[in-house]
């Protein structure tokens, strides 16, 4: 159960080897060991992550997860709940891809949409079933400011995030009466293995800052947060910039 201070007893990480997901599990270690389910591709990265989290005091279970294998998702969530209720689930998987290839190459475009949009919708629906049955539970979706106003430079990625962002905001409304809570997190540029080698944008953050925002947002039952927080106002402004002008901005 999530206690009165917003501290969970169990954590499901979908995309469990992502830098942000692991940073979240590390932050929660401060309140004592949790039951952590790492759902990710099998391999040395997952094994290493499990060892790291175990050393922090968590009790770790590993489950095989493939974002595009949507048919397996309902059973995966049920498996994750076998050891007890899922207090907090983090949907942390996604790909950035090559921005130009992502619209010029048909396979790449479809794959990006499948991993970043269809996958989250699929696990979101499976998690919603679990939350309704439990009568409580928090789902955290790692979105992106790229989805808030989709721009030319990475529109395939931005559009997939925009779709999933909207889905999770709506899911939060739908789950309210069932005791559920959904937190959508919109980070700006985050220094992770996914963004490695790219030019950092202004207001760039590390995975730890995103994790801090997640932990605080879960406790406060927030529905939408930006990381860093001032991005909210930046994006609010950008949303209203007229198209001809927006096109000329160096974004």
């Amino acid at each position: 159960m999530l206690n009165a201070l917003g501290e969970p007893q169990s954590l499901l990480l979908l995309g469990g080897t992502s830098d942000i997901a692991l940073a979240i599990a590390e932050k929660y270690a401060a309140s004592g060991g949790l039951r952590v389910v790492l759902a990710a591709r099998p391999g040395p990265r997952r094994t290493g992550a499990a060892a790291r989290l175990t050393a922090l005091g968590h009790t770790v279970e590993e489950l095989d997860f493939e974002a595009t294998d949507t048919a397996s998702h309902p059973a995966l969530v049920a498996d994750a709940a076998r050891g007890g209720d899922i207090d907090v689930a983090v949907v942390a998987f996604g790909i950035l891809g090559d921005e130009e290839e992502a619209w010029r190459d048909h396979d790449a475009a479809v794959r990006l949409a499948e991993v970043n949009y269809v996958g989250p919708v699929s696990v979101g629906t499976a998690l919603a079933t679990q939350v309704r049955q439990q009568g409580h539970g928090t789902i955290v979706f790692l979105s992106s400011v790229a989805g808030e106003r989709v721009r030319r430079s990475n529109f395939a990625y931005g559009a997939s995030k925009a779709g999933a962002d909207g889905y999770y905001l709506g899911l939060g409304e739908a789950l309210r009466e069932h005791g559920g809570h959904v937190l959508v997190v919109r980070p700006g540029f985050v220094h992770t293995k996914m963004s490695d080698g790219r030019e950092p944008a202004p207001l760039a953050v590390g995975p730890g800052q995103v994790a801090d925002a997640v932990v605080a947002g879960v406790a406060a039952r927030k529905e939408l947060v930006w990381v860093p927080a001032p991005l909210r106002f930046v994006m609010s402004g950008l949303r209203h910039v007229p198209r001809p002008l927006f096109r000329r901005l160096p974004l």
Partner: protein
Amino acid sequence: MSPLLTGWGRTAPTAATLVEVSPDGVPALLRSHPDRGVIARGLGRSYGDAAQNAGGTVIAPIAGPTTVRDADDGTVLVTAAAGTSLHELMGDLLSRHLFVPVTPGTRYVTVGGALAADIHGKNHHRDGSFGDHVVELELVTPDGRVRTIGPGADADLFWATVGGMGLLGVVTRVTFRALPVESAYVRVHTERVPGLEALLRTMREHDDEFRYSVAWIDTLARGRALGRSVLTRGDHAPAAELTGAAARHPWRAPGDPRVAIPATPPVGLVTRVGVRAFNELWYRRAPRRRVDLQPIPAFFHPLDLVEGWNRLYGRRGLVQYQLVVPDTAEVAVESALRLLSDAGHPSFLAVLKRFGAGNPGLLSFPMPGWTLALDLPGGPALAPLFRALDELVVEAGGRVYLAKDSRLAPATFDRMYDRAEEFRKLRRELDPDGVLRSDLARRLDL
């Protein structure tokens, strides 16, 4: 799914199906093994998750008649349905020149809740807790059997049910001994005490002279003023002492709340500056020493005057922390106050009280010593303070009160309640399928 439920602290809401059943309907409900179990709920005054059952079934207060009869030994026995509130009971009983044997800081708790939490009041040092006054109760166990138990009949099950947080069965009715009184007034001795040492000494030496005794501490006071407080002690007033309006209406029943907080403000109104000012004012205006007559609500339930006062804490709600430490660990009271004033979290008046002997209840909270209750605005920032307090309490051989708790971890709970394993064992025997469940039971792995 019906409404989201929380405790009085308004934290950690969960959804459950709320059902109304008569006492006769309880066995069938339990035998039907509802998905994710059942827990009985009273008026929702425990602060945490004790009367919540996420995804499961929650039983609304079970109504029924109240009967009063004379026992052979000259005492008066009251039998009430589990869902009867102490507020209703007081109205009933005062007209018969009787009072409830134990009342907490609010009248809006049910008899079933009083038993499940084994509640205590300002008279614990003399009279013990609610369970000590119960002679018999009707319990529907998870197999659907209706059992009548008491300290003399199936005593083991009885003392597991007292303080058992509703997890061994559904209590449908309770018979307890009432307290004869001479009026609905209390003769109250109020005095201002400048510091903790004087307070502990006064309470240790003179509490026994009064039936009721409690101290309100300004938790933001530091240094030499640490523990400055207002001590109030009293006894039911004899009819002969009443004057004026009190003499004309010596049996006036407690009324309904005078004002209500209609909505939850988005931001809590309980802030450090506000609480500091309130505590200061409240200490300054208290008399150095005074004896007066107070009606029952003013002495026992001042907060009941404001309906929904918990809403003032805003969306984040409030978190209570009530600890008890044995007499031998008196110094822990000072350490706890120091931790609190150093952390600077704004706690409205903390309540300090001396407990008398405990009872055999497996999870009953009271033990001989000192109990301190703190009300704090909720939020994750409290976590380090509470963890430090937990350590202090465990080291001192004490525990925290489950009716107030909303954040304890199972490992810490086990270090505080040395009979937890006995309770779990009994639960596994009586309830192998987990028919009775609550969010508190899930959280503490009971």
